[in-house]
């Protein structure tokens, strides 16, 4: 890692101070994990343009309900996905589009779900916060903050009892970290040495409540010590760093050593959801955060390492934009769900 990037790393996320005991971010660029950096770049662009489209479509009144976008957090989703092995599982949060797309979700079906169409991942029943595709290892987002934390531990318990190699990554935010069930589950997972990675995506804000106003002690990962769980904190806007730290955490969990807590410090450049005027923070804070956004940083790295030139990056961007436009088209012309089936399928 270059010295320049190390500096950026320590200033990432004004709401998430660097951990004084150092970073788990000795990010090597050569990895044997399932996504190379160019693929990661493409996935990050897909997420960014998808989320920008979601905000635009809300503004235009073409989609309704609610959605929480993850602009600025793409490196966390993709860095984690890039470190997973086949068979691993992930649970997500209310801000889950990015996690799902990072695992390879089809943007068409995801967009169709937001459009409330029969072709959506949940046939229009779930909306933004309730989608799942277990064939991709994606065990669902969740509209209840912290609600999927014990669920993830249950997936891990099932894997452990069956002797599977699976590790489960449980995404949660700085907000969910304050839910009692988060602590209950950490204790339980440590007690039973579950193959689980608690992946805290600290984006600085629980809706409008900054971590300074929500956390009594500023260093999230210190909580892990209370349960004897090893932990690390990483600059969540540094894709290779996230990938590397996640790989380490997965390795730990896969070797029957029990769970690990990994904090990825990032910044939610989006508002909480539609209608958030972001009056709780200064525009200056946001403009500073934009300077640290993860896609440009990855692109600088790709150029620096001669993995891509400016023309390639432009081509990537255009292709990603096109994929999202195609997804909107797909969703727009997809059939609506049959209202006569609305009460069907409550029970198996």
């Amino acid at each position: 890692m270059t010295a320049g990037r190390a500096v950026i790393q320590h200033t990432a996320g004004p709401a998430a101070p660097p951990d004084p005991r150092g970073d788990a971010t000795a990010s090597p660029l050569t990895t044997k994990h399932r996504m190379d950096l160019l693929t990661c770049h493409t996935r990050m662009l897909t997420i960014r343009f998808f989320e920008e489209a979601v905000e635009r479509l809300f503004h235009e009144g073409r989609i309704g309900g609610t959605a929480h976008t993850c602009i600025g957090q793409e490196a966390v989703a993709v860095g984690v996905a890039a470190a997973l092995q086949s068979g691993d599982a992930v649970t997500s949060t209310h801000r889950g589009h990015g996690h799902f797309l990072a695992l390879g979700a089809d943007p068409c079906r995801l967009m169709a779900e937001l459009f409330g169409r029969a072709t959506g991942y949940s046939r229009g029943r779930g909306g933004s916060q309730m989608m799942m595709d277990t064939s991709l290892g994606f065990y669902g987002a969740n509209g209840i903050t912290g609600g999927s934390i014990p669920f993830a531990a249950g997936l891990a318990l099932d894997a452990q009892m069956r002797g599977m190699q699976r590790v489960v990554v449980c995404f949660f935010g700085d907000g969910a970290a304050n839910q009692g069930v988060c602590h209950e589950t950490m204790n339980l997972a440590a007690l039973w040495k579950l193959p689980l990675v608690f992946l805290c995506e600290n984006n600085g804000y629980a809706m409008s409540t900054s971590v300074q106003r929500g956390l009594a002690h500023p260093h999230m990962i210190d909580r892990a010590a209370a349960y004897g769980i090893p932990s690390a904190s990483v600059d969540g806007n540094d894709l290779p760093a996230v990938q590397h730290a996640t790989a380490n955490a997965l390795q730990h969990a896969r070797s029957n050593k029990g769970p690990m807590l990994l904090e990825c410090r990032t910044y939610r450049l989006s508002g909480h959801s539609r209608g958030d005027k972001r009056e709780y923070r200064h525009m200056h804070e946001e403009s500073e955060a934009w300077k640290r956004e993860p896609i440009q940083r990855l692109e600088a790295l790709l150029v620096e390492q001669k993995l891509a030139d400016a023309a390639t990056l432009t081509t990537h961007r255009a292709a990603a934009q096109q994929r999202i436009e195609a997804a909107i088209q797909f969703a727009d012309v997809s059939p609506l769900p049959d209202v006569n089936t609305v009460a069907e399928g409550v029970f198996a």
Partner: protein
Amino acid sequence: MRTATYTQLLRETLEAALRRDPRIFLMGEDIGVYGGAFGVTRGLLKEFGAIRVRDTPISEQALVGVAIGAAAAGSRPVVEIMFMDFVTLAVDQLVNMAAKLHYIYGLRCPLVVRMPHGGGRGYGATHSQSLERLFTGVPGLQIVAPATALDASALLQTALQGSNPVLFLEHKLLYPMRWEVPEELPAPQSFGQARIVREGAQVTIVAWSGMVPQAERAAEALAPEGVQAEVIDLRTLAPLDTDTVVTSVRKTGRVLIVEEGPRTGGFAAEIACRIFDAAYDSLDAPIRRLACPDCPIPAAKKLEAACLPNAATIADAARELAGKA
């Protein structure tokens, strides 16, 4: 034939299930060495080990959530909540996760949550409640409330073979009761089929779980007075067998619904409404509910007894309803 308690048949059913299906495991607070607060799992740790008879810390929300996750992945967990009152701590997981997995994602959730409920033991306001009303309005949860040892076994077997989340209510006063039962466990019993405990032509008494034996005793006491009561044990609240209740009410024209919980907002009100919708023209008297007063259940024996419906108060209400008071 032999005699067995409710507790005994529950234990034998769990034991047989653990032998039959390697996906089934038990988890809960103090269910291992201690054998569960009411002894239902006593001895199972020794046979099946700590992996499948799994003690948990006191963390109801996490342990129910963990069970739901394991169920979604293909395991078949059976959770014991030590007292039904404590399930309030896990309501989020049951209501927002378990109940919605199939409707939204098409994901099966074969989960059984066993819960001792009910008063009569002087345990006080937070260890005596019957909180089924919190869940009867939640689509996606099946609610079972067996009143006999055989039904407890038969319905538990169905729950253990199913693909849906089941809340399994066990009344504390039923645990030590003894019934004459066959040597073999009974066959599984489908949900949604009420049982006519006793036939009668003058008044229908609807009850479930711990109120069923009280209703039976009331009916026995009324018979010599010339009041023939038909007693219906609902067995499951979700699904609810409305037909059996309505058919009985069409015959008797009078119905008393007994519920061990506060009157206001109770499940008896739902049953009453269904009866009225389907059979208002057969009613010879207003539908009558007997429930606890709208107050917490106090600890002192005398005060608690003043709250809970019992055979005597059921008999009084049924007698009055039948016009023989």
